[in-house]
């Protein structure tokens, strides 16, 4: 029986493996290759050079990188605080109503992120849905609320809400009720139950949720373009500019590689620490 499962496992894995090898691994290798090419070439047939990484440090590309990582970090913390109470309710309290919330949140994912962010533009711009109505009701002159850094963080928080919420729900539902009850009977305060039981036991869900939101937000582009105008430049913008206006594939690749190494490194580290079977609920 084991022999059969060994073979069937490998064979079933093949289609996805081949697919991802061709469209995920190979392209990333090309990026890595181009990152070590001299600037402004379009072929990999050149002698390797570290010129692009020197440009990264000399021309201050670390500023947009840090800005992207900082905004992603802020959005992740904000999302954790916002999602935890709701996730707790969905996992432990709401019962059937949590299915309704799940469906309503998933449904928003199917509307293009662009369109939803543009909806925020229409909501917050001068004369938009919020300022416009407030102005009409109160008679006060209202400015638009767009084009600054906090609004981009809010945009990220909005766009990646489901990616924090669902892993948290999954994580919190792994906390056994008996354990919380026992701790409460023994006189533990709510805060102590939260810190010593809820947090550690829900940690796999917290890790997955935070990781997902952080890496997606760190590489996001649409939020800063639509909500930030041209006021805030993030890492993904710089990468795109290097490729398009700059026509400098090696520089763009080096910038992309740096982002990929940070984000991919985090993802691999976290994925290697968590038990996927446990989170997704394998029997036995």
């Amino acid at each position, binding site marked *: *029986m084991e022999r059969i*499962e060994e073979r*069937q*496992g*490998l064979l*079933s*894995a*093949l*289609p*996805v*493996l081949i*697919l*991802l090898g061709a469209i*995920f691994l190979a*392209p990333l290798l*090309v990026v890595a290759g181009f990152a070590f090419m001299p600037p402004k070439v379009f072929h990999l047939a050149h002698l390797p050079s570290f010129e692009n990484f020197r440009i990264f440090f000399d021309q201050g590309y670390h500023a947009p990188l840090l800005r992207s990582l900082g905004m992603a970090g802020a959005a992740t913390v904000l999302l954790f605080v916002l999602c935890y109470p*709701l996730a*707790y*309710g969905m996992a*432990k*309290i709401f019962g059937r*109503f949590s299915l309704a919330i799940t469906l*309503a949140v998933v*449904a*928003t*994912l*199917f*509307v*293009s*992120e*662009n369109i939803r*962010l*543009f*909806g925020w533009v229409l*909501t917050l711009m001068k004369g*938009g*849905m919020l300022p416009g*109505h407030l102005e*009409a009701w109160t008679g006060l002159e209202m400015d638009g609320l767009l084009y600054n850094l906090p609004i981009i963080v809010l945009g990220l928080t909005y766009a990646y*809400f489901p990616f924090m919420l669902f892993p948290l729900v999954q994580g919190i539902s792994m906390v056994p*009720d008996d354990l919380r009850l026992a701790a409460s009977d023994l006189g533990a305060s709510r805060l102590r139950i939260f810190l010593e039981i809820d947090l550690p036991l829900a940690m796999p869900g917290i890790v997955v949720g935070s990781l997902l939101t952080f*890496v*997606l937000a760190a*590489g*996001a582009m649409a939020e800063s*373009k639509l909500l930030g105008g041209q006021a805030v430049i993030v890492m*993904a913008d710089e*990468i*795109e500019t290097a*490729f398009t206006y700059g026509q400098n594939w090696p520089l763009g690749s080096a910038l*992309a590689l740096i982002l*990929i190494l940070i984000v*991919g490194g*985090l*993802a*691999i580290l976290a*994925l290697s620490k968590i038990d*996927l079977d446990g989170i997704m*609920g394998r*029997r036995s």
Partner: protein
Amino acid sequence: MPHKPITRAALLVYGILTLLVLYLPIAAIAFASFSKARYLSFPIERYTSQWYGKALESSTVSDLIVTSFKVAFAVMLVSVVAGFFGALAFARYRWRFRGVFQKFVLLPIFFPQAVLGLALLMWFNAIGVTPTWQTAIAAHLVWIAPIATLVIAIRAYGFDPALEEAARDMGAGYWQILREITLPLLWPGVVSAGLFAFLLSWGNFPLSLFTTGADLTLPEWLYAKMVSGYSPLVPSVGSMTLALSLILLLASAACIRLTGRRRRRANGGEG
């Protein structure tokens, strides 16, 4: 631990408020699509449905819809097939490299999509493929095939291996087991994965941006219009894609419910 009614009520109110905020921008788009003014400003003075008519007449818009539909449909087919087998390797069979396989399949989900799109652009260039809407299919699959695998895998975890083993002991072959045991049991997962794949591809922008070449998908066109100043067609076309997502969602919910009921009846009320 028993929760106080006040906690329950507070969390419920919080949940409803959250949903309202999530849908606020979508409501703004829907309202804006009915505004008569050429330059939008709230509160809306006069309503009209003329922009929908204009959008429907436009040949650009219908071309875009056809392109987006072709891409989403192909993405759906490939990711459901790859995801079905991938999910079995992910959750059902115990084999040596399962842990590594699980992590590898999930890895693309954790990568910034715009960067993946650029990487693919360079890869296509390196192997001499000109980007068109067909290459966008490959690009969407990077992100969507792992998600389809994950969605079906969640279903496959709840799967009792004894059913397959019993069929094998009674002499059923691999494909017969697959067709008569495995596929029917995983069917709800397969339907949801297909729906996810189609809709995520239909709305995807960052992966399309660099990989469609001269062709345009609907989200790309909308984006180009958004950054080049206000056009009243953006809210109306946006609302139309929204309506299509909604219809598909409701149709598949009805479909899952119907097949579930038929299966329960066939099993004599259990299911």
